[in-house]
């Protein structure tokens, strides 16, 4: 238990947390960026947990059938688009509440994935390749911590791109206008409903890709406990990140590190209170929600058309 000095153990723990953040954060990142796009258009899609699980199943199945994991990623994205179109379409009907539809689609997506995924639990599908960022080091721990999938840099780049697009691009501004004030958007001639449906579908695509990461890279297997609520936490994370893609990326990395905390501490021999450390991501969600929902304060950055900002 005390083979290493405290300093070394601390470095090793930091490395383990970094590795965990790089490994675990990608699904959080993709789902939260997707939700960010959707919420910017003025709708909340709580069903992304279902989309994530369905994407994981679809991606695994297609990778198994075609032998190409990248086709699997694409298929997962398309599953997500379909789920997004369903949510967007249903919410465009009069008097339909987007939160209720989201919960229904969450149950629908996970149920459908479990049903169709039964024959996929046993076989092994081809996995996505990894990129060795740590090849320069002799230390196995550094190399394993820096072994990442190409989807992570893609997601981080996407966060930067969205950050720019929401401020400076024509469609980004149109999206924000639709989300902030539908009446003004209509007056300017923007088609509000199609933009919202498109934003929900795009959000679904990203969540589906996040699911493919789970089944095709890490942990890299399809089974029914695969997501265990990651899609829901990612939605909460968007609110904490105050609808900023860059902050979404930071928060996703933070959640990834929190998820790695429990196993990392126990493998270092710090074994007391592991239930607490294992619950770190959930505790973090609660704490962040509580911190960002201080009563009496306005919700800075929230799109004006979201159902919970409407009064």
């Amino acid at each position, binding site marked *: *238990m005390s083979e290493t000095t405290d300093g070394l153990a601390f470095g*090793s723990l930091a*490395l*383990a947390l970094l*590795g*965990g953040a790089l*490994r*675990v954060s990608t699904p959080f990142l993709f789902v939260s960026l997707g939700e960010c796009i959707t919420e910017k258009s003025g709708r909340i899609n709580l069903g992304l947990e279902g989309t994530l699980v369905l994407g994981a199943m679809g991606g695994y199945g297609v990778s198994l059938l075609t032998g190409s994991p990248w086709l699997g990623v694409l298929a997962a994205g398309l599953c997500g688009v379909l789920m997004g179109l369903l949510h967007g379409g249903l919410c465009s009907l009069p008097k339909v509440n987007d939160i209720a539809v989201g919960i229904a689609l969450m149950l629908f997506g996970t149920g459908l994935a*479990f049903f169709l995924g*039964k024959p996929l*639990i*046993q076989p*092994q599908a081809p996995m996505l390749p990894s990129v060795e960022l740590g090849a320069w080091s002799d230390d*196995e*721990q550094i190399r*394993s*911590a820096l072994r990442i999938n190409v989807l992570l840099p893609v997601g981080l780049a996407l966060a930067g791109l969205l950050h720019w697009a929401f401020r400076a691009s024509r469609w980004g501004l149109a999206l924000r206008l639709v989300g902030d004030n539908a009446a003004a958007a209509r007056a300017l001639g923007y088609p509000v409903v199609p933009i919202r449906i498109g934003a929900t579908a795009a959000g679904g695509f990203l969540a589906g890709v996040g699911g493919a990461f*789970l089944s095709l890279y*890490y*942990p*890299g*297997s399809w*089974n*029914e*406990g*695969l997501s*265990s609520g*990651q899609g829901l936490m990612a939605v909460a994370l968007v609110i904490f990140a105050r609808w900023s893609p860059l902050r979404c990326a930071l928060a996703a990395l933070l959640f990834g590190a929190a*998820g*790695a905390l*429990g*196993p*990392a501490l*126990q*493998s*270092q*021999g710090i*074994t*007391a209170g*592991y*239930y607490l450390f*294992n*619950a770190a991501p959930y505790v973090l969600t609660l704490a962040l929600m509580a911190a960002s929902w201080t009563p009496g304060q306005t919700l800075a950055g929230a799109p004006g058309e979201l159902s919970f900002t409407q009064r």
Partner: protein
Amino acid sequence: MAQTRFSAGRRDILRILGTGAAASALPFGIGLAGAADKLVVGVIYVGPRDDFGYNQAQAQAVAALKKMPGVKVVEEEKVPETVAVQKTMEAMINQDKASLIFATSFGYFDPHVLKMAEKYPNVRFAHCGGLWTAGKHPKNVGSFFGYIDECQYLDGIAAASVSKSKKLGFIAAKPIPQVLRNINAFLLGARSVDPKATVKVIFTGDWSLPVKEAEAANSLIDQGVDVLTCHVDSPKVIVETAERRGVYSCGYHASQAKLAPKGYLTGAEWDWQTPYTQIVKATLDGKPMVNFLRGGLKDGFVKPSPFGPAVSAEAKKKSEAVKAAMLKGDFPIFKGPLLDNTGKTVVAAGKVLGQQDPLLESMNYLVDGVIGQV
């Protein structure tokens, strides 16, 4: 309609129902007639039946039950260890007329199975893993389990033989007695080869958490562990992660050898067919419920996986010798003096706990050499 009746699928159903004279009857008639004079056995799983692990091992035994004459099986998967399992049991009893129920997950026992057993005294409940106690628990309840720690001990021998760092890793779901017994047996097996070997334990907190299990596997490997084993519902993710990282693994529940052709050493597998058929036969013959059923290697309740390519001839020989002693029934795993990892004596010097000793089924400590905390 006439064509489908003679297709393979329909014939199978007819055979399972065993109604020879039913060829002219409609499917509905068959179902009702079947239920009336057959023993309906309900089986409840906590996860999917083909999970490469715990549930698959149970389902393999149930597949054998389905072939028994006079038995009809109804199954339900993915039933959580909550009040939901009571509802499933009631539905099986009232709607399917089940008179024998196999509740296969540990958490079903107390209070769910016990409550249902009191409410339905004419139905028999067989629970996997519980500790049935005479006088305390109803007569229509029985618990069956296997001494899989024998296979874990054999795993430990193989693991310590191939390990270079002599650091072994164990990824466990929850610190319940059966899990602790497996961890301790694995360590004792390893220490029989190398008295300096250690086992690092990570508790993930639940039976199926793939991301956390992969994370646990990676952090153990980062800490120099070079053989991994586990006690979770589906070892698939852990065995695959070990193979990808180039370390060895020992399987659990069923064989995962296919998943890790290079690094799979051996594994601890269940063979539930023996207890299942025994309990069903007793019910069919109208004998009293088998309340307490246990067995190890000797009784065919458990078996080790065949050795993988990395296990040396010498290690195989040692393992085979211990296995032979276990088959004869004279190899107690837990014998004094035995310290736990806080330095307390848990088995006094000179004392030997036989495999059947109920004391072992309430184990609440990790032995010296295990790095972890209950």
